[in-house]
């Protein structure tokens, strides 16, 4: 009977319980305005979560997305503010993130640097490069430009805030990619057993490059949403701890760090819980420190519950992951 209880369902249940609790206990939580701002705030986290999920499912990780996102978006705004047409500026930014993805992928696949170090270093490089050559000032604000562009982050469709719609679109596209496209299946195979993937004849190294290019493009999308929603973006975001929130969303949803497990549904569930939690804690006026402690306790609880309910193959479990 307990078998049906995997981490995804546990987290979903916790999210529902929290939602009910907050609705009853916190005045104003259930108001339409609050609910909308709740989903809007976590949309960017969710979009980045999708990118991180694609990395982790393939037994990688991308710590550079938190640099790629603000730097590419800030550059786009700088170009537009300098008079470049939006379409052209977008193509430039797209070219930039694709280059970042290719470099990440090449370092990991061909130079064989572990993903965590390659992307950590690349994050610093992107931030530094951006500051030196692309956007000399930290905070870039949206200036002139067409209104449709600003609507990406601040508009509404049928009353739904557009960041939520972008999150839904990105999640749906990633879901279809991972589930129904050949490269998506290959990424699962590489996450499950990289050696077997290679021997089976999967083009492992080109797939790794594709993987990190897709991740960088999603980071650009998140950056555009953020910049247009807040009417500007600050590249110092690269120095924040937001990347841990992104990993939290992914791991909390039940995508194992060992790779090969989970999917986009897990990201959505993880985002939901973190969203409700952050919103509730903000209404309660908790300090940043207390918020961090609560977040980490919840992460630990979810992982412990998952290990207890779904022991891995006993033989492997006894001898550790090898």
């Amino acid at each position, binding site marked *: 009977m307990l*078998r049906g209880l995997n981490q995804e369902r546990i987290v979903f249940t916790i999210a529902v319980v929290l939602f009910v609790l907050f609705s009853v206990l916190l005045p104003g939580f259930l108001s339409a305005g609050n609910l909308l701002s709740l989903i809007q705030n976590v949309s960017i986290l969710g979009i980045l979560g999708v990118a991180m999920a694609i990395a982790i499912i393939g037994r990688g990780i991308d710590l550079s997305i938190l640099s790629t996102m603000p730097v590419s978006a800030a550059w786009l705004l700088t170009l537009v503010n300098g008079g470049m047409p939006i379409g052209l500026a977008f193509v430039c930014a797209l070219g930039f993130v694709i280059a970042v993805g290719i470099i990440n992928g090449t370092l990991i696949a061909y130079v064989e640097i572990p993903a965590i170090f390659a992307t950590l270093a690349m994050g610093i490089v992107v931030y530094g490069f951006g500051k030196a050559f692309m956007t000399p000032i930290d905070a870039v604000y949206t200036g002139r430009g067409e209104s449709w562009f600003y609507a990406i982050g601040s508009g509404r469709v049928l009353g739904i805030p557009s960041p939520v719609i972008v999150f839904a679109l990105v999640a749906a596209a990633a879901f279809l990619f991972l*589930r*129904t*496209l*050949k490269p*998506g*299946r*290959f990424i*699962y*195979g590489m996450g*499950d*057993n990289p*050696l*077997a*993937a*290679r*021997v*089976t*004849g*999967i*083009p*492992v*190294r080109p797939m790794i490059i594709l993987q990190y290019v897709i991740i960088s493009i999603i980071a650009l999308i998140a950056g555009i949403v953020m910049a247009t929603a807040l009417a500007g973006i600050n590249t110092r975001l690269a120095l924040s701890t937001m990347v841990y929130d992104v990993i939290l969303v992914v791991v909390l949803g039940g995508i194992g760090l060992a790779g*090969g*497990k989970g999917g986009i549904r897990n990201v959505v569930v993880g985002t939901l819980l973190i969203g409700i939690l952050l919103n509730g804690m903000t209404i309660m006026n908790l300090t940043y420190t207390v918020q961090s402690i609560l977040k980490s306790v919840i992460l630990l609880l979810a992982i412990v519950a998952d290990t207890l309910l779904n022991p891995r*193959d*006993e*033989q*492997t479990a*006894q*001898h*550790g992951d*090898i």
Partner: protein
Amino acid sequence: MNALIEMRQVTKAYRGVPAVTKVDFVLREGEIHALLGENGAGKSTLTKMMCGVTLPTSGEMFLSGAPFRFETPAEALENGIAMVFQETSLVPSMTVAQNLYLGDERLFNRIRGLNIAAQTFLQSLNFNVNPTALVSALGAAHKQMVEIARAVRKKVRVIIFDEPTAALTPEEKHHFFALVRRLKQSGVSIIFISHALEEALAIADRITVLRDGEIVASDDAGAFDRDRIIRAMVGRSLSGSLYRREAGQAARPVGEKVLSVQNVSMGSIVRNTSFSIYSGQVTGMFGLIGSGRTEAAKIIAGVAKRNFFNGGEVRLHDRSVRYRVPRQAVADGIVYVTEDRKLEGFFETMTIPENLYMGALAAGTAGGMLVDMAEMRAIAAEWTRTLNVRAINPNARVIELSGGNQQKVVIAKSLVQKPKIIIFDEPTRGVDVGAIAEIHQFINGLADQGLAVVVISSYLPEIMNLSDRILVCRSGRVVEEFGPDEATEEKIMYAAVH
């Protein structure tokens, strides 16, 4: 003799499906007890309950008369029960010596002391393994020897060996059996799981046969012969010619020369070896450990990383091919079926259909850019039927299958790639007698269809039975070639050793 371990009415069910049902089993003090049965009969499951890897769903277990329930292998070890698992459980990034003493380190280990101790110990077992080598660099046989040594070192009362000989060549098997006899003399009780019935008959004091999770026969070894064991295992008798070429069956005619290997070297493992492979034939490759058979195959199929590739040429038809990655070889129809299924064979969190489909997608023999679920199910249905793969549950992940069934999945995953040249490395490792016959028949069928088939095996009868040509390897190169009529076991062994 007293019962050391006794199991009464023990049942183990996975998700409600029993893998072992109401078993009464007794291990006596100081005996060698062979546990036999088909793939998935429940041998591993039964023994895993004794050594703390899994707990029984119901039933009682007694150790020297006292009831026990071990939650962890460490607890079982404290009580004197050790197990050597079917799949390797060594830490690849550590040396042999470090693996041997894993868990017993003192706070400050002197590496040199550790290596010397390991060397002395391995030598006392007659195991020729370098204690300073990294485990990841060892072949399957050496890994198995380290596993065995690790269990023996623990000084326990009971050692359970789960298919210890599957990866060993005759020479190492000989040392292993000598070791088992010495252990018995020093009072250790032994459970020995194997698919090699001759081995069980030769070494065991008592034999227990499992079928579908139940004990169907348990008696003194003297009361069994090969035929009685097989009848108990499968419930009927099989034709006796399992390992013998059908009388009068001629070798297949030599087909087109599809692949030639010329003066290929790789480090000190493959040394300037040359040989050819023909279509419509089974080419057997025999050799002792370290003779470079697996490595030569891995060079051909692009599995060996090329920075180790030190010269020589591989020609496919008239084209020179030096594959950097297996993908290129697979695209050209050359497929290597690995000897180490857990390490580089299957995808463990995936189901059987997903595993097979992954092979088809990678080779482009199924699906386009899109995944086709119906096609995936059809492929799985076809191959599980052809190779008779058995799982408790159709959606079981491959890690939950028994060892022999995992092997069949790996073979099927390679065959869905529709290769023209297929290299089987120890294809029947961990596979039961009935299934060995099926797989052999199947391999013969592939050659009849015109494929170039290579079989690497350490088991001479398997080589003799299957091959139209036999290549013998020694110290990194092919040293001799036999036709099927001229080959005898003595000649082959002589060529392999001298």
